[in-house]
């Protein structure tokens, strides 16, 4: 309990510090001005969401292999937190796009594939609500999680298919890409803060799921005796 409280306090402080850095430390972008500052949250949430989905995939694989309910708890926690971060991305994106592109939404490849990614994990969470038996729910949702995750690179492959309005990768892109030095520090700090925050949420959700598992077990024992 104490460990999670400390982690939570650190996560909240880091997010507040990242917000301060994004608004007051980072330099103003030349063409977009103030509105560009949403970038630090938009992209760091996207990265945190993808990290959460990757951990979800790993725990799905581990569940199928080891059949330990802990991996199921981790899987559902990561999927929920990842879906939450992706929701933030899908909301903060249009808020940024309206002043920058003049429209809230465009059926561009990266927007569409993020939307599909979000839908896939919503489907994963819905599937879990529709299977009663815990072992079966864990196994089948883990398998769907695996199928969904291997589908993601194929969906993202469609980026090369359509012409894209979304900017080409700025970080780790081509030789002319990259952030201004003042922006880079703030950006990577925001990424760190979001990841710590993500980890805190996953830890909380995991503890909740573990309690649910324990309650189910106790109820079973009580009914048996």
């Amino acid at each position, binding site marked *: 309990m104490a460990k999670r409280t400390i982690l939570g306090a650190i996560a909240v402080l880091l997010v507040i510090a990242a917000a301060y850095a994004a608004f007051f430390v980072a330099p103003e972008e030349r063409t977009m001005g103030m509105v560009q500052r949403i970038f630090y949250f938009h992209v760091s949430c996207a990265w945190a969401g993808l990290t959460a989905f990757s951990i979800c995939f790993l725990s799905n694989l581990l569940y199928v292999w080891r059949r330990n309910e802990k991996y199921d708890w981790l899987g559902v926690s990561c999927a929920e937190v990842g879906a939450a971060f992706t929701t933030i991305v899908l909301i903060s994106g249009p808020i940024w796009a309206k002043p920058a592109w003049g429209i809230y939404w465009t059926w561009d490849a990266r927007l569409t594939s993020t939307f599909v990614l979000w*839908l*896939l994990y919503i489907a994963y969470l819905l599937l879990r609500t*529709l299977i009663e038996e815990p072992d079966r729910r864990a196994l*089948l949702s883990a*398998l*769907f999680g695996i199928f969904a995750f291997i589908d993601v690179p194929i969906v993202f492959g469609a980026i090369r298919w359509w012409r894209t309005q979304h900017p080409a990768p700025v970080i780790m892109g081509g030789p002319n890409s990259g952030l201004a030095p003042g922006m880079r520090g703030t950006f990577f700090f925001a990424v760190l803060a979001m990841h710590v925050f993500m980890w805190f949420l996953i830890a909380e959700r995991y503890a909740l799921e573990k309690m649910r598992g324990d309650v189910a077990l106790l109820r079973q024992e009580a009914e048996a005796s």
Partner: protein
Amino acid sequence: MSLLSNAATLLRKEVRTEFRSRELLSTTIVFVLIVVVLFSFTFDPTSTESHRFGPGLLWLAFLFAASLMLQPCFLREQVNDTLSALRLAVADPFAIFLAKIGANTLFLLLTELLMLPVFAALFNVNFRGQLPGVLLTFFLGSLGISTAGTALAAISAQARMRELLLPLLLLPLLTPILVAATEVTVGLMSPEPAVQWKGIGFLAVFDVVFLTALWLFGEYLLEE
């Protein structure tokens, strides 16, 4: 080798079951027809726009039809618990999946080929001279839809609200197929038709990836 011969035997069983009643095929064909007709009400199909929107509508109709057509492939086995018998009968459960994928691909392909002339007439497009390209696209697309769909039908058959759940799981997963197949079909239907090999390759990659995934994880889908 026993995997393939087992799968072939099971495939014959699937096809024979279907052709005794032909109810799956006839219902699916009528469903696709209804969807195509209803879609065409949403815009003027005589205009040049039909060349742009037509293939997308066609593939969307196939995807919707598949998400309904794939439902019975495991539910049918539950009625008399024949799935347990199947599992006991074959050494590798992948044979069951191969047979079901084969049968579903065949049924889907038949539906698509029967709908093609109707679609060409209704939307005033011409596929003549492009038949090999069309066949290849339809085959790779149907194989991908059936592979992912059979795997997910095995999941949804074990859940509540299964009729609604399968489309919900399947349709987002099939977006790459929808995109690639539509692009290739647009290319084949344009006034100067061309086969877009990039799209064909994309479809083939999807098929290979999902067949491999099913080969690796299929047996867990059928666990008791």
